[in-house]
C-alpha cells in the first residue's frame, strides 16, 4: 500500500472519529435539554415502586420442617421439584398492586430506568428474606421515601406505619403529599397517626 493511500485512510479515520465524538456530545446535550425532569420523574416512579413493595409485601412465616412426600415407603426426590402447592400464596401481591407495579416498570422500561426498580426490589426482598429466616416477628423497616422517614413495624404480620415529619414541613403538606400517592390502607393509617 502506497504512502498517500495510507495517509488518506488515516485522515478518513480521524474525521470519522471526530464525527463520532461530535455525535456523543450532541447526545449528551440532548439529554440535558429537559433540565433533569426525566430523571426526576424516574426517581419518583422508583420511589412509588419502593413504597408499594414495602406496603404490600411481608416476610414469610416459615414452617419448622417440610413434610416429606413418600412414595411406597421411599422418599421420592422428584416430588421435591418446585410446585405451586409448596409456594406460600401470602407472598403474592393483590391484582391492583401488581397493575401499578407493572405500569411503573413499563414506563421506566421505555425511558431506560429499570435498574432503580430492580435495585429496590432486591434491597426490599433481601431484607425480608433475612427476616423470614430469622423469624423475627417484631421487625422494623426504615425506608427513606421522599423527605419522610417511613418506619414500618410488623407484629406477627400486622403492619403499623409511622412517619417522621421533618421539622421544616407542616402536617398539612405531608398529608397532601400522601393523598397524591393514593395508596389504600397506608393512607388511612397515616391520617389516623396525624389526627392523634
Amino acid at each position, binding site marked *: 500500500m502506497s504512502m498517500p493511500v495510507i495517509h488518506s485512510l488515516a485522515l478518513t479515520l480521524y474525521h470519522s472519529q471526530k464525527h463520532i465524538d461530535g455525535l456523543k456530545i450532541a447526545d449528551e446535550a440532548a439529554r440535558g435539554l429537559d433540565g433533569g425532569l426525566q430523571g426526576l420523574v424516574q426517581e419518583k416512579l422508583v420511589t412509588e415502586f419502593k413504597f408499594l*413493595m414495602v406496603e404490600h*409485601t411481608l416476610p*414469610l412465616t*416459615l*414452617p*419448622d*420442617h*417440610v413434610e*416429606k412426600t413418600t412414595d411406597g415407603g421411599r*422418599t421420592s*426426590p*422428584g416430588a*421435591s*421439584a*418446585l410446585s405451586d402447592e*409448596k*409456594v*406460600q400464596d401470602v*407472598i*403474592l*401481591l393483590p391484582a391492583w398492586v*401488581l397493575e401499578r*407495579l*407493572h405500569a411503573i*416498570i*413499563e414506563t421506566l*422500561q421505555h425511558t431506560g430506568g*429499570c435498574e432503580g*426498580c*430492580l435495585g429496590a*426490589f*432486591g434491597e426490599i*426482598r*433481601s431484607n425480608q*428474606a*433475612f427476616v*423470614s*429466616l*430469622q*423469624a423475627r416477628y417484631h421487625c422494623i423497616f426504615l425506608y427513606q421515601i421522599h423527605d419522610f422517614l417511613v418506619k414500618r413495624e410488623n407484629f406477627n404480620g400486622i403492619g403499623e406505619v409511622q412517619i417522621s415529619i421533618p421539622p421544616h414541613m407542616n402536617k398539612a403538606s405531608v398529608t397532601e403529599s400522601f393523598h397524591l400517592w393514593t395508596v389504600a390502607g397506608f393512607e388511612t393509617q397515616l391520617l389516623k397517626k396525624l389526627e392523634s
Partner: protein
Amino acid sequence: MKLNYLKNLSPEAIDRIDWDHLQIMIGLWCQHIEVAVKVLYASERQLARQVLGHLDQDLWTECFVKVASTGMVQFLQFGEGIARSHRAPEKLFKLLDMFETLDQCVPTVNTVFEGDSGLELRARTRELQKLVCNRTTLIQLVLCGQTCKYHHR
C-alpha cells in the same frame, strides 16, 4: 428458625464444637436448608416473576438470585465446613442425613435457580453433595479397614 449455628462456618471452628452440639446443628441444618429452598426461595422466585416478569427473564432471575444468594451461601458454607472437618467415624450417620437432605433439595435448587445467574449456586450445591458423598465413602472405608484388622487378629 434459629440460625445462630451458621456462624460456625470454617472446618477449624466446627472441629472445636462439642459432638453433641454438632449433631443438633447438623439436624437443624438438614431441616432448615430444605425449608429455605422449598418454601422461602421458591416463594421469593414466584414473587420476583409476578412483579418483574414483564422484563427480560435474565434480568429478573438475576435480581432473584441476588435476593437468595446471601442466605443460600451461608447454608452451603456450613455444609462444606462439616464435610471438610475432621473425618471421625461417628459423623457417618450425620453425613448420610446431609446427603439425603441434599438429594431432596437438588431438584428444587435446579428449578428455583435455573438460568445463567443461578449457575454458581446450582454448581455449588451439587459440589457439596459430591463432597458429602466422598467423605461418607472415606469413613466407610476406614471403618471397613478397622473391621478387617480386628477380624484377622
